[in-house]
């Protein structure tokens, strides 16, 4: 197969960029910010080039680049993308420059380190989405924890140390079990194939042949790691802490992209590697997803801190994604893929907005606000618009995902019961309650807190961050085909891989 270097270039850009930063005097904050921004924009442009070159009629991995890395163990540097990862790569490269712009004035100390870690983070996330080698994937998966750990730990709020350690250990603990499962899988495959391999495409052929019981254990080991990242109820308690303490940019990336690594992991690894176990556990995982939808929404409803509210809303929204994945039909899986993007945009924008207003008022307590619609009309419009997108108002992005997921789950033969959808759909009601309730308390009414009278509306830079997101919120809502088309074939394929796994010939 012909090699394509585009993905490698994409990965190289943040590496080169962050190395470049090392040579800049840390006093030159402005230059550092500009370099960071330009580097992230270059990465975005490369991902756009990939997108325009991407063949959405194929379910194969494209832009594959592979060479031997650790020959003794037959480990390769092996990257490529398909429809599932294409959109997530775009989301990553789209959000990174926006978060850098959003941090323009809020990050005041250690700008160099901050920009460095942000680019490092981008590398890690992109790496996770494009790796086609199990070992390479695991390296990126773990490496990505490091910059996030520092971003929360250095630029975070008061309890940043607690939050960052909790984040790190929590996710690390899950990953270790996955590592054990990976080793088991690789050793098994080596016996099967007569040679050592960590190539995901080879493992796709051996995974389904594993005996059901062991497949179950392996599935659970992977699932735990991904479930923590998603986070799936009841593995979610690291999230509110991490979000509340993280600086805005951290929260946006965390919600926008990092959580998607969990859902992506289910699609990329759990389903195709362990099809039988996926079917066996679809019910259990879906039950947790539905609990998460309702639980996350109810807990979000009673939060007094805006950031915590948005954090819990993620638990609810990601529950929809997981439900879609395990409903295992085209409607639901496509819905889940688009909902990952939607959540990245909507929740990302919500965190940006909370960050912007926090920068002005230094409070995130809902009760400190009230009546600011009059004082900061553009901000209030933006908050309402984003909330509506998150609520799933038809015509905006969130609806497309939720509707497809719920429709798919309703007719799913794998789930085999309407109750999943009936309970999950109540999340639609609660979402309206918690977001509009918050909105009412923040924007409507009379201004009761005198400090709120003097705050200024969003400036040009802040609008520049939000408007691109808003364009996509409307675009996906009105014409989702642009995006659904990209993942269509790959969604079909992953369902096929579960329902009719192409098992390796044992001879």
């Amino acid at each position, binding site marked *: 197969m012909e090699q394509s270097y585009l993905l490698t270039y994409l990965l190289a850009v943040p590496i080169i960029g962050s190395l470049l930063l090392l040579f800049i005097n840390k006093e030159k904050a402005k230059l550092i910010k500009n370099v960071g921004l330009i580097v992230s924009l270059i990465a975005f442009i490369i991902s756009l080039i990939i997108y325009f070159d991407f063949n959405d009629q194929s379910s194969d991995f494209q832009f594959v680049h592979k060479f031997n890395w650790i020959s003794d163990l037959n480990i390769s540097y092996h990257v490529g993308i398909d429809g599932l990862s294409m959109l997530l790569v775009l989301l990553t490269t789209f959000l990174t420059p926006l978060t850098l712009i959003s941090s323009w004035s809020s990050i005041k100390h250690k700008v160099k380190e901050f920009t460095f870690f942000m680019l490092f983070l981008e590398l890690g996330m992109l790496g996770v989405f494009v790796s086609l080698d199990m070992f390479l994937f695991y390296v990126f998966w773990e490496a990505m924890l490091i910059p996030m750990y520092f971003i929360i730990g250095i630029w975070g709020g008061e309890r940043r140390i607690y939050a960052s350690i909790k984040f790190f250990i929590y996710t690390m603990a899950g990953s270790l079990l996955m590592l054990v499962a990976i080793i088991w899988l690789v050793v098994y495959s080596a016996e099967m194939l007569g040679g050592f391999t960590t190539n995901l495409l080879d493992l796709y052929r051996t995974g389904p042949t594993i005996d059901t019981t062991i497949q179950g254990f392996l599935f659970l080991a992977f699932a735990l790691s991904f479930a923590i990242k998603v986070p799936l109820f009841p593995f979610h*308690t690291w999230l509110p802490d991490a979000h509340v303490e993280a600086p805005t940019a951290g929260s946006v990336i965390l919600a926008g992209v990092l959580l998607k690594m969990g859902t992506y992991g289910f699609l990329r690894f759990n389903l195709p590697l362990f099809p039988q176990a996926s079917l066996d556990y679809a019910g259990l995982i879906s039950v947790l997803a539905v609990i998460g939808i309702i639980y996350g929404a109810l807990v979000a409803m009673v939060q007094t801190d805006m950031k915590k509210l948005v954090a819990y809303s993620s638990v609810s929204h990601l529950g929809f994604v997981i439900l879609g994945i395990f409903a295992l039909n085209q409607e639901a899986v496509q819905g889940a893929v688009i909902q990952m993007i939607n959540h990245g945009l909507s929740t990302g924008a919500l965190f940006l907005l909370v960050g912007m207003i926090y920068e002005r008022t230094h409070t995130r307590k809902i009760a400190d606000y009230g009546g600011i619609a009059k004082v900061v009309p553009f901000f209030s419009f933006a908050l309402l618009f984003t909330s509506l997108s998150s609520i799933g108002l038809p*015509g905006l992005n969130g609806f*497309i995902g939720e*509707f*497809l997921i719920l*429709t798919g789950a309703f007719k799913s033969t794998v789930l085999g019961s309407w109750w999943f959808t009936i309970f999950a759909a109540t999340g639609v*009601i609660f979402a309206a309650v918690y977001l*509009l309730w918050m909105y009412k308390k923040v924007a409507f009414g009379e201004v009761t807190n005198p400090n709120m009278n003097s705050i200024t509306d969003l400036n040009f830079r802040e609008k520049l961050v939000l408007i691109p997101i808003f364009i996509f919120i409307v675009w996906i809502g009105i014409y989702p085909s642009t995006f659904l088309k990209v993942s269509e074939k790959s969604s079909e394929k992953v369902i096929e891989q579960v329902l009719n796994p192409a098992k390796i010939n044992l001879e």
Partner: protein
Amino acid sequence: MIDLIYLTVLLPLLGFLFNGLVGPKIKSEKIIGIVGSGAIGLSFIIVVGAFFETLALPVDQRLNIVTLFQWIAVAGLNISFSYQVDQLSLVMSLIVTGVGFIIHVYSIGYMHGDKSFWRFFAYMNLFIFAMMNLVLADNFLLLFLGWEGVGLCSYLLIGFWYDRKFEKSTTSAAGLKAFVVNRIGDFGFLLGMFLIYSTFGTLVFTDVFSRAVSFAVPEHIFVLIAIFLFIGATGKSAQIPLLVWLPDAMAGPTPVSALIHAATMVTAGVYMVARCSIIYASAPAAMMVVAVIGVFTAFFAATIGLVQNDIKKVLAYSTVSQLGYMFLALGAGAFSAGIFHVMTHAFFKALLFLGAGSVIHSMHEQQDIRHYGGLKKYMPLTYGTFLVAAVAISGIPPLSGFFSKDEILWYSFTNLGFVFWLIGLLTAIMTAFYMFRLYFMTFEGKERFSAKGGSASGGDSHKTNPHESPKLMTIPLIVLAVLSAIGGFIGIPEIFSGDHGNLFHSWLAPVFKTAEMKLMHFGGHSHFEELLLMIISVVAAAGAIFYARYVYLKKPEVAEKTASRFKGAYNILLNKYFLDEAYDATVINPIVKGSENFLWKIADNKLIDGLINGLAKIVDKISGSIKKIQTGIAQSYALVMVLGILIALFWIIMSYS
């Protein structure tokens, strides 16, 4: 013009964008008002054109679909922005753009001087955009886009004056309540769509309805679909049990109440059920549910309307009650009678609200009818048009309300039975009574406010200067009064019109043909019976009007005496059966308190997070005690080493022997 129907959606959208983006900059009420109303006026002209074009077509070609572009295509689901122009959607579109245009013009006068004039017209245009999507959609999903869209506009417009207080709470609380209660309904609607899609494999109306006939689908599936969709309708159209939001929706500016909460949006549920007539006709049990909910809502809302003192509240409960009538019609299988009442109600109820707006406007935002009285000499046009509407809603011939209401009563008698008819009749009597109570207390009798320079005394300390409203407001009143008066003539029942038949029904007949054939109700049709029932209801309504005149004009003390004699019942009605309080106590508080005190503070913080942190602590403790082994004393390390060697040796020896 049929091909241009998408413009009726697009023009309001452009109006919204213009007023939303440019409006705050230009600050010219004239331009904003002209753009806002113009967009709707043009849409109305297009709808009229499409109507006549359709009328000219042979009956079997009166269903046309105009497709803009594909919206969602996944697996078997293929949904487009497609608009269905047929007899039913044209009737609804005429109402929405026609009455909508009149109310927009009125609003230029009513909202004059408001600092957010532009925002008002932006929202109103957005509403028409959503509403046109709702009535013109050729599939359930696009209908739902309109359905939620009108809900959003309703939310925004109820809370339009977001910094104002409303009753015990705020306008924004009322808006939130409306949105959330509607969402509960939408939850049902969504489930209905899921079940439709999984049963018929499509969400496009024409396909669903033809498959509903051709597919062998068990009846209970039809019943479930019908009930799920009807849950949506109870939300949008404020029926039991989801009616609580509509009275609070009166927190919005009065033109909003007229347009959204009387004439158009709240009838969306009626439209939707009528649109799905074949599904309901295939689910007799669901039809019965619709009829029962409808008739009870009509009755209960009317009882509440009897004692309310806020002019808009009376009208709000009246709207709920009239919507109940419409559902009663649908439940009786008289689909076009239901739609007919949607139309006449749009005329007279919009007129009542706009008239109320005119009164409120001139009374400096005073809404309590106990502080009105004798206004007819100050505002003759408002008075005259209001009276026309009051007569119309009371069902006095030959005004529009008579024809539509009587038809519903007749069909409920023949198709559902005496009890339904009787409750319907009692409701009609109460309607006439509370409407004329409102009328007499507002326009006739003693002035219960202190006019500027006047000598009349009253409980009101403010000086009030009642005056007729400007032309921009009175001309719309006159137009609606004409429509309320003669609008019923297109639906004159056969017994009067003879060979011409009922024009309205024959226009809509093709839409409901399949459903009505399935129901096969219309067997024995006795003209004598129909006439008799008609006379009974007219006489009863007229009696109620005269009784209202007696009580509120001649002997005002009778009302007070009655109220104090039946204090308990009076209080229950005044507090709308304590429905809000009941919901608070049984649903809302348990959920909120449970979420806060149990889910969040105990389950999340203590149990789940406690378990995690506990695990961490245990690990910490264990390693803390293990670390003591690392004493740093060489002798103890040596001791352990020797012990280890001994054990190893022992093991080896044992295993050899």
